[in-house]
């Protein structure tokens, strides 16, 4: 097994769930197939990328955009309903409700913000890498990330106020 084979195996073991999470942001039915296809393309690379995780995320993004374009609007809505479940492990604890609220808030964000937040937090990419992936500037990515986080905070505060019995 050469060095690249080892790296691919490690990526599958360590980062697969992050990649599937990223693919699911497009809310199509083939998130897992898209990730598998991205890995297949990585295996076929003659020159192994310096940052395979960034390469995989970019490939997943491109494939997902293609996949999304091929769907009709009606189907997209159907898949949106199907894919909104099972993104994260929700622990059976006191924080369960809060975690579910957070997931819901994240899912309600626009894709432009969501893809950046997921790529940053779970994909582990830097602002520069995300900028390269989304073909935009670092400052634009940074601004969208901060804005997304702020919107999430607002949404969580609102939902918390709604459920507060003393309000």
């Amino acid at each position, binding site marked *: 097994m050469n060095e690249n084979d080892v790296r691919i195996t490690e990526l599958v073991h360590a980062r697969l769930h992050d990649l*599937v999470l990223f693919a699911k942001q497009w809310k199509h039915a083939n998130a897992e197939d898209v990730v598998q296809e991205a890995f*297949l393309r990585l295996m076929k690379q003659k020159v192994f990328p310096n940052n395979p995780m960034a390469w995989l995320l970019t490939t997943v993004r491109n494939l997902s955009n293609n996949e999304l374009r091929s769907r009709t609007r009606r189907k997209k809505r159907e898949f949106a309903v199907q894919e909104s479940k099972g993104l994260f492990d929700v622990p059976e604890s006191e924080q369960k409700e809060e975690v579910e609220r957070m997931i819901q808030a994240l899912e309600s964000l626009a894709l432009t913000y969501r893809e950046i937040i997921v790529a940053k*937090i779970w994909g582990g990419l830097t602002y520069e890498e995300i900028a390269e992936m989304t073909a935009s500037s670092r400052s634009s990515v940074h601004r969208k990330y901060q804005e997304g986080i702020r919107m999430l905070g607002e949404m969580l505060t609102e939902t918390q106020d709604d459920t507060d019995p003393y309000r």
Partner: protein
Amino acid sequence: MNTIEHKLSALKPVGQPELARRILDTHHRRRQRRRDCFVAFAGLLTGIAATLVVVLSLPGKVVEVSSVQYVFINEQPNDRAGHASASRNPDASTPSVPLDFGVRRNDDMNPDSIDIEAWIARYERLFRHRRETASRFVVIPQKPPILPEGVSLWEYRQSLLEKLQV
């Protein structure tokens, strides 16, 4: 990292054991196929190299390939003994006949069943280099026929050479 980011990063995406197995299976199969291809290619190269070494190191000699025997005939007057003893004819335009033309009686294969032209065509490229130095090249079956009643070895050889236009 603010509180929201901190809370988000604490979320753990759902595991994908089935997908991981599928990808690793594919990865394993690809590596296996790559290894098999490499071994087959190395074997092929070794085979070609070995054949070329043998062929190129045998100027004016008999080269045996499969069930067919190749004779390189050099018509130069100073050719080595053996193959060219009959080609010492200074008149190069006269077809020469190698004396050691390898027909043997004690075999039972009918040369007519061998598509000699096909053999020549098949190996022509391989032996092109030799053909440049050996002005002519003939192919004869390694396993000669049971000669028909009343036909001598000499007559058979002549007819075969005619057929080959040697």
